[in-house]
């Protein structure tokens, strides 16, 4: 059964997330071939990693005055409304049949330690074709200054079971 189109416009969130310096570092390490740990299994910053992403002293002298996250660290907090949507009991989505089809992010502000991100989401499109449902969710995450940090467009593809 295709998902009812009446859910277009349904909203999710707000969810909040406090950005920590070590999480920003761990994320950069994991993407860049390292181990996301500051503990005994950690191996330090991967060779060649941009200092703005892990070296607080160097970053304080840099253009943003502090460490920043990789822009795609935004997935960590902006995924929350997407998670709520695909597990919404009213939508009856079988998660085993779901794949992440497409993703777009627009980045407006850098992500810094101590930022408090508030994320909301809205179903902006729902359609079915060739035996699959396509769900498009748009998320917006704002920081504690009320500035839009990232807008995400998430496409989930759900095979009919």
């Amino acid at each position: 059964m295709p998902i009812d189109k009446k859910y277009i416009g349904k909203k999710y969130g707000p969810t909040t997330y406090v950005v920590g310096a070590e999480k920003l570092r761990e994320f950069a390490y994991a993407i860049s071939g390292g181990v996301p740990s500051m503990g005994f299994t950690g191996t330090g910053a991967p060779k060649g990693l941009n200092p703005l992403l892990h070296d607080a002293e160097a970053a304080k002298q840099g253009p943003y005055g502090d460490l920043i996250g990789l822009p795609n660290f935004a997935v960590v907090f902006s995924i929350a409304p997407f998670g709520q949507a695909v597990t919404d009991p009213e939508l009856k989505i079988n998660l085993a049949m779901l794949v992440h089809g497409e993703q777009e992010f627009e980045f407006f502000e850098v992500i810094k330690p101590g930022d408090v991100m508030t994320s909301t989401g809205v179903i902006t499109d729902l359609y079915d074709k060739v035996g699959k449902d396509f769900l498009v969710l748009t998320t917006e995450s704002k920081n504690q200054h009320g500035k839009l940090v990232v807008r995400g467009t998430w496409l989930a593809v759900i095979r009919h079971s």
Partner: protein
Amino acid sequence: MSFSVGDTFTHVRTCDRYRPIYYAAASGDFNPIHLDPEFGKAAGLGGNILQGLCTMGWAVEGFVNYLGDPGKVSKVTVRFSRPVMVDDTITVVGKVTAIEGGKLTAALTAKNQKGEDVLKNTVVEARV
């Protein structure tokens, strides 16, 4: 740092055995299809697969290395066209297609060691 239309950049990453676990720890995505080979096989995927958003992260990382400043990235668009499996080596190749009005645009490909696209329609933008 100067940028020109036609510039290219290449970035190579291998999905080592623990990469999906490391990315799960960093991102919070602990879906068992990424962590558990048996679960991945049962889901018809032939094993555990890397989080698509990690592959997207490699595309962004390659672009960041070219730009020299992670804070300049303003947009990324990807389509996930094929799963990345453990031991796959992904080569990201980017080419700058336009620079105008303070915006740099690059088109990217991301292929596995067999030459198959793991990302399609991948476009990144930056403030320059």
